């Protein structure tokens, strides 16, 4: 045992976090080393002083207030994360939502190399809702097709939740699980309903499943143009 050990492990020495063998050796060293003794006393006083720092409690109300602030104070989405959302999606559906239109279906097709899914996988569906004006108090209802599950909502066939839609594109990413045995070649159908100021709009969203390995690159390619085309067609 030497001074160096005590220097290097000074907090443990002060707080008694040593093995009994180490403690014995430290004790033996200290009886012969006034420098270490002095340093240890000083450090002990320092640690005791620091331990005297008190911290006020964060009240439950304050916690809730902080968390609530996040929900009312969110910044508009950045283009960056918007693009990232697309890039991450390997199953996509794309919808154009205008109140003066009847029903708009849009299918994004991607090449399918296999038919039956041998292994369950989780992927993300990006739902793009394009609205002509801000809709701060809209309600969104979504029916989940039987073939897939929404991660975290397994077994649920329908979901409702309030949404604040901004003028322009709004992306909703749904983590979905595709169980094994599902025919990846089929088209599955999500049905969504948006209610804004008692004006309702239903829309069907047809999705072709693609395994994550195959889908990612194509998705980005497919998404950029259909959006523009759809709007041209609707114009």
């Amino acid at each position: 045992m030497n001074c160096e050990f005590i220097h290097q492990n000074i907090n443990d020495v002060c707080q008694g976090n040593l093995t009994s063998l180490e403690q014995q050796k430290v004790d033996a060293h200290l009886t012969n080393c006034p420098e270490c003794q002095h340093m240890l006393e000083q450090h002990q006083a320092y640690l005791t002083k620091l331990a005297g720092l008190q911290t006020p409690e964060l009240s439950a109300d304050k916690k809730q207030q902080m968390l609530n602030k996040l929900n009312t104070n969110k910044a508009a989405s950045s283009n960056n994360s918007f693009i990232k959302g697309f890039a991450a999606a390997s199953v996509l559906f794309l919808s154009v939502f205008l109140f003066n239109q009847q029903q708009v279906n849009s299918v994004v097709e991607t090449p399918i190399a296999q038919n039956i899914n041998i292994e369950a996988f989780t992927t993300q569906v990006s739902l793009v809702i394009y609205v002509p004006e801000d809709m701060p108090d809209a309600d969104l209802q979504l029916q989940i097709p039987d073939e897939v599950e929404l991660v975290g909502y397994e077994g649920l066939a329908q979901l409702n939740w309030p949404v604040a839609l901004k003028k322009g594109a709004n992306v909703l990413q749904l983590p979905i699980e595709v169980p094994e045995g599902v025919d990846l070649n089929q088209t599955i159908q999500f049905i969504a309903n948006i209610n804004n100021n008692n004006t309702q709009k239903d829309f069907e969203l047809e999705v072709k499943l693609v395994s994550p390995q195959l889908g990612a690159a194509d998705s980005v390619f497919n998404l950029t143009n259909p959006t523009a085309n759809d709007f041209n067609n609707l114009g």
Partner: protein
Amino acid sequence: MNKVVSLLFGNNKQQSFEQIVEPYLNLMFKVAYQYTGNTEDAEDLVQEVLAELFKNLTKLQQAEKTKAWIMRCLYNKFVDQYRQQKSRPLIDSLDDEQQIPLTQATPEHELLLTHQQVLAGLSQLNSNQRALVTMHDINGYTLVELAEIMQKPVGTLKSDLHRARAKLKILFNLQPSDIQSRHCM
């Protein structure tokens, strides 16, 4: 986009933002208070960290070491925020109305005095030293853990810690007489 996603995850039984961060709120606030030295700044800091974590919800949900991730975010926000303010003014707990005449000192006053001395000492350190001292010497994080949180080599942290402790030890020994002199004025 965040709004829509959050509303979805807000209902999610397994992965909601609140469920991830709630267990760490007390710790975040405690450390934020140790960093900033007052309640208001600590609350602001925690709020900013929450906003940052919220923006990175997906990463947070996938993070293996949630606590280290949160602590890193807290540290980074603190250092960013206080980089501009080179020398922090002495903390408000040394204001005159909070001073206790030493002749009236009771055990409670002793505790308050120690608390004030520590805050005053910490306020003399730069933000990096301050974070290091509080995390290592108060909260018991190891240098290896702190290397991950602060993204610095252990060797650098070790010498920074050494310097910060030396400065604090001097300040702690000087402060009682300093405070006493303030009362005599």
